[in-house]
């Protein structure tokens, strides 16, 4: 028995050596220096579907973003006034009607779907009906509210008709929708679209095309060599799925993966020490905050016993050393949030002032509001009610969990008892956004360019306004800011709106994450856009001098 063991072991070893020797055989076949390369991205979860209207969460966004195209791409400055900065994509040009209530998009006549069919205006019209359909579950529908309809003037011209003149008209028409192939989908009834196999086998117009999806393992896309705008420079991109974050980082540091998006602060030092990797700073469009429930949990018509008082809220804001907290959790890769919007989207960050970090004043404010420690237990109280509350955190966010623990300490120092409570994601969602059953919570939002989302998150009847902050002044300023055409006037309104909400302190704006990504040095990238690192993916390339084995597997090599 023992002898056969050895033989078996030996033959396995032989196999391995032979196989290793065999990988050198793929030669470069007529490749230019510009093109080629394989990028491997490691992600914590696979998307649930690649059908653009059903995209929820961030998992499928990069893949959809490079396989499909929009009519026009927003400029790097993420401006949403009129059509400033927008670049042609599927639409090669556009013209406004004299009354600005309609825009006619002229489609690039050379555009083709990945299956070879030409792109027509009918596709655009069909896309609009899908995105606004009631049978499909998607959250972009409210954002398209100002578009009345889309009509086909001729096979290469689609016309968008609007209800009102708004600064964001063009943005509304182009940003939210990825154009879908009507010739593949229009025979499927709307209610069945969700189940269509298209979601697992998408066909788009982008410079990358979809190749395969191994469930639970990886998704692969390759360069579309027949694309009218030119093929992508890389040969292929593979999304490799690794839900355990430890395994993800190990893949990156072991060289199995080239790109990791969700770096945690503790990995940064390691990346610095790894010569083959580099960090790219990326301003993400997100911000985190400690939100207060301004209403009483049991009887929502009454203000909250603790947080209903503005002095208490201001004290709780001033007692937090936001800078130090950011430095602990994000090291140099976070910034203090100034307002309910990331700095990249705030027109002028110096136009409004913040509450300072001032523990003495915080204590004084609490004293004057009647909260004093009457029983010597180091927790303030008033009328027998202690100044104590829970902070609800979702289980998926380690940064927020860290923040909760840090905040607990900060508040302990001024006699406030904050208790972090971690809830599983779904339970947290339900408690915060549906039942409003919380004292305080750590939330985070990812606003889109144009900041229309503020209507949902902080305006009086916003559906995501969990703490039920209601300020007619803020609502009015927000509305003005969103509907004024003149950018300068609009900026002034924004400044006043932010000042208003900063004074009211419905929440403590805690952090804004710079979302650095780690990438292998051999890749030459375009600047990363804040609303999606993948936007310029088609123009990324590999430094020819630093190619490795998998870069040499060219397109057209039979699998």
């Amino acid at each position, binding site marked *: 028995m023992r002898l056969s063991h050895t033989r078996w072991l030996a033959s396995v070893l032989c196999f391995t050596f032979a196989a290793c020797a065999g990988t050198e055989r793929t030669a470069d076949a007529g490749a230019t220096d510009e093109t080629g390369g394989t990028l491997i991205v490691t992600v914590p979860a696979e998307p649930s579907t690649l059908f653009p209207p059903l995209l929820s969460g961030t998992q499928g966004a990069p893949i959809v973003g490079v396989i499909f195209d929009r009519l026009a791409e927003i400029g790097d400055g993420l401006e949403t006034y009129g059509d400033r900065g927008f670049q042609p994509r599927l639409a090669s040009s556009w013209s406004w009607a004299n009354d600005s209530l309609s825009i006619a998009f002229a489609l690039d006549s050379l555009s083709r779907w990945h299956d070879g069919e030409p792109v027509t205006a009918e596709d655009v019209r069909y896309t609009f009906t899908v995105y606004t359909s009631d049978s499909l579950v998607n959250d972009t529908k409210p954002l398209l509210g100002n578009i009345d309809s889309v009509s086909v003037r001729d096979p290469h011209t689609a016309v968008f008709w609007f209800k009102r003149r708004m600064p964001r008209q063009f943005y509304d028409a182009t940003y939210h929708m990825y154009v879908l192939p009507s010739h593949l989908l229009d025979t499927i009834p709307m209610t069945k679209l969700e189940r269509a196999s298209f979601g697992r086998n998408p066909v788009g117009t982008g410079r990358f095309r979809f190749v395969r999806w191994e469930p639970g393992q990886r998704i692969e896309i390759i360069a579309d060599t027949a694309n009218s705008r030119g093929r992508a420079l890389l040969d292929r991109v593979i999304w490799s799925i690794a839900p355990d*974050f430890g395994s993800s980082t190990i893949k990156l540091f072991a060289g199995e993966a080239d790109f990791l998006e969700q770096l945690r602060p*503790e990995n940064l030092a390691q990346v610095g020490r790894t010569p083959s990797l580099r960090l790219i700073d990326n301003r993400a469009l997100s911000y985190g905050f400690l939100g207060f429930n301004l209403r009483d949990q049991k009887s929502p018509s009454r203000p909250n016993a603790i947080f209903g008082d503005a002095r208490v809220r201001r004290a709780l804001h001033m007692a937090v050393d936001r800078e130090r907290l950011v430095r*602990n959790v994000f090291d140099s890769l976070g910034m203090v949030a100034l307002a309910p919007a990331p700095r990249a989207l705030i027109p002028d960050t110096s136009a409004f002032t913040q509450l300072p970090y001032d523990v003495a004043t915080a204590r004084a404010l609490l004293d004057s509001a009647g909260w004093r420690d009457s029983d010597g237990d180091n927790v303030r109280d008033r009328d027998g009610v202690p100044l104590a509350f829970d902070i609800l955190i979702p289980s998926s966010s380690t940064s927020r969990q860290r923040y909760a623990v840090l905040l607990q*300490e900060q508040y302990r120092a001024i006699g406030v008892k904050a208790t972090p409570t971690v809830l599983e994601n779904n339970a947290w969602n339900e408690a915060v956004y549906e039942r409003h059953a919380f004292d305080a919570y750590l939330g985070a939002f990812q606003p889109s360019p144009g900041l229309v989302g503020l209507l949902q998150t902080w305006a009086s009847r916003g559906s995501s306004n969990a703490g039920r902050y209601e300020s007619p002044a803020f609502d009015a300023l927000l509305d003005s800011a969103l509907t004024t055409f003149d950018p300068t006037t609009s900026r002034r309104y924004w400044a006043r709106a932010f000042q208003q909400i900063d004074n009211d302190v419905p929440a403590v704006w805690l952090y804004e994450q710079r979302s650095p990504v780690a990438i292998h040095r051999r890749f030459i990238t375009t600047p990363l856009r804040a609303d999606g690192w993948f936007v310029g993916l088609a123009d990324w390339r590999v430094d020819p001098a630093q190619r490795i084995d998998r870069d040499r597997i060219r397109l057209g090599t039979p699998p």
Partner: protein
Amino acid sequence: MSRRVAPAFALIALLVSVVVLGPLLSPYAPNAQLDIIALRSQAPSLAHPFGTDAVSRDVFSRVLDGGRVSLALAVLSVSLSLVVATLYGAISTLVGGVVDTTMRRLLDVALSIPRLLVLLAVGALWGALSFPALVLLIGFTGWFDTARLVTDELRALGTREFSVAARAMGVRGPRLLWRHLLPHLLPTLVISASFGVARTIALEAGLSYLGLGIQAPQASWGTILHDGAGVVETEWWLSLFPGLATVFAVLACNALGDALRERFAPDHVPTLATSLTASSAPSSSRTVRP
């Protein structure tokens, strides 16, 4: 044979004393954030033998504190399991007949449900479970195999001379159980408990590692592992020390179980949780102990 008992007891004694004396031994409070900038994520040093974690808490203190939580959870839930199992087994055997058969069938059904999946489901769906809730949950899902053991033991014991004699003397029901059967049952229960505690410690560590057991900021061996999950290579001390502590505790309990089994129940073929069925009687006739 006694070779096994002495080292096992020594291990257990060490474990218990470390855990009980924990608060005295730990240099810092387990949740104290010492200096969130300067002392963040420090490698082990003289001042911090197990290093510090991301919010500058001393890991050594946390491991000691976590030990108390992990062990308390394990001991309490296993005790609960034992009580429920014994009651169930006793009722089933003493009542006998159809009830007995039905109860045993129910037990079979319960045994076929994968315990971990249920725990995962509950943990994931309800999120933050308080300590008592966890004890109840783990206790109530863990008594099935012990109940199986108990029913089999009781049945076997029921045919032995002393219980036949007792019954002939008119001793019935609860008194029979308490006075005559239980003392003979005790070794099996204690052995089962040892292995049960070992399994539960590992189970808690696993659940908390997935984020589903004990919740932050409370320290437990599993939560420290959870904290260190993303940085296994760089902040290895967060994964190594609680892991070693867990192994040590599990080892101690297993060693104890082994030793006790050697000493008290040499007739039994080594039991896995669900192994004993009717064959336990004949197998004892096979062994001939020197």
